[in-house]
């Protein structure tokens, strides 16, 4: 996935881990509203941002994605009351730590998008894609199978 990506045609590949109740619904709304946003993001739907194991982010990067977006309900709006508040602490540690060991901050981005924010969802995807595009293809942490 990663070796032949340094050509002109390289497009960032982004995985978005999103909560079922807000961000996924927000994505739906963006679709129903016919909003345009870049097709670089693959959504993975999870029950709640509290269910997102920080390991998912690390594994996605290991598998060669250029960026990971994590999005849940706004604080106070979590379907399970406080999943996102617990998640916020985990991700604060995670983003700091990944950056500390030298992984660019914009490779792992965290945000909140509610079910009524279809328009925000489209903007988030557009801006995140641009941020990751600016970084170029991911090179760190990737598991290159041929070097085994």
């Amino acid at each position, binding site marked *: 996935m990663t070796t032949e990506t340094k050509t002109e045609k390289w497009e960032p590949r982004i995985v978005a881990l999103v909560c079922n109740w807000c961000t996924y619904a927000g994505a739906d709304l963006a679709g129903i509203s016919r909003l345009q946003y870049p097709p670089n993001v693959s959504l993975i739907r999870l029950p709640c941002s509290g269910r997102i194991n*920080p*390991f998912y982010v*690390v*594994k996605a990067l*290991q598998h060669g994605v250029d960026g990971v977006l994590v999005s849940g309900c706004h*604080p*106070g709006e979590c379907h399970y009351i*406080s999943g996102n*508040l*617990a998640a*916020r*602490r*985990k*991700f*604060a*540690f*995670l*983003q*700091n*730590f*990944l*950056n*500390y*060991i*030298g*992984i*660019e901050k914009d490779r792992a*981005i*965290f*945000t*909140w998008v509610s079910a009524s924010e279809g328009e*925000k969802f489209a*903007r*988030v995807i*557009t*801006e*995140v894609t641009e941020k990751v595009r600016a970084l170029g293809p991911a090179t*760190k*942490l*990737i*598991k*290159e*199978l041929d*070097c*085994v």
Partner: protein
Amino acid sequence: MNPIEEKIREEAKRLLDEKKVDVVIGYETGTLPLQTAPCFITSSDEIDRLVWNPCCKQNLAIYVHSALSQHRESQKRVKPEDKTDKVVAVVARGCTSRSLVIHLQEKQYNREDVVIIGIPCQGYIDKNKLEAGVDGLEVIAGSIDGDAVKVETSKGKTELSLIEVTADNCLECRFCNPVIHDFMAGEAIPAYESDDEFAVVDDFAALPEAERWAYFSAEMNKCMRCYACRNICPSCYCKVCFVDQSQPEWVGAGVNPSDNQVFQIMRMFHMAGRCVDCGSCVEVCAEGVDLRKFLKKLDKDDLDLYGHRAGAELDKEAPLSTFRENDEEAFIFEPE
């Protein structure tokens, strides 16, 4: 025999003779010079094995956890009338007592299952510093005499000062006295005055990203994934560790450098708010991986973001066991 050692033995003897505990976990002289090993004393005839000196390095809390959890496991299929209790006594310095606090907070056992023999601790000898002090030669014999460490190598005898070979984590430790104890084997002592505990983190964070990554990946390349660091860590007590899982296989079993990095990122991440900086993982690592530089970052974030120090207070919740509505969220991305 130093006064602390004497008191440890006295207390161990009393506890065993009065049948207050089933086993005393402490340190005994090791088979190599300037080394000690953990020991498990079950009868008061053996208390003379117990020692206390700057060669006592390991955090013994992990053995308390395994003794108690194995006992609990063994009681599962026993008839109710035949069930027994097990009480463990442990020789605990500051960091060990903090690990015990973490176990208690995480409901691993009850406070009455463990008797804490508290020790005021001035630090232990760092194996890497000692090695550097004798130019990497093998230590054939060694002894500690006050503030001097006398070592003998194939090139002859030398003398090093104790403070020079004391581990970094000890020199910056703010918990020289146990945070909880049942008995103190000595007077409480003041902590070392360290101006900036987190200098190691700030210096590293000031490097350019590419250099940080180069350092991290070079360190992790040394790792042979023996998992000794995980095995010795008192906060790594899961029955099945993520590295051993195959469904899903979080960490590949091969020798891929990326799997080393992922293993360490996740092991360290699990230490967020749970690492007491005891240095045991650094001490057991045969490859000299600089784990502390990375672990200390989590420690710093824990303090900066949530005002918490791992295991410092029994009634203060760990950062990832709780949350506040107004937690720091500057890192949350908002589109323009």
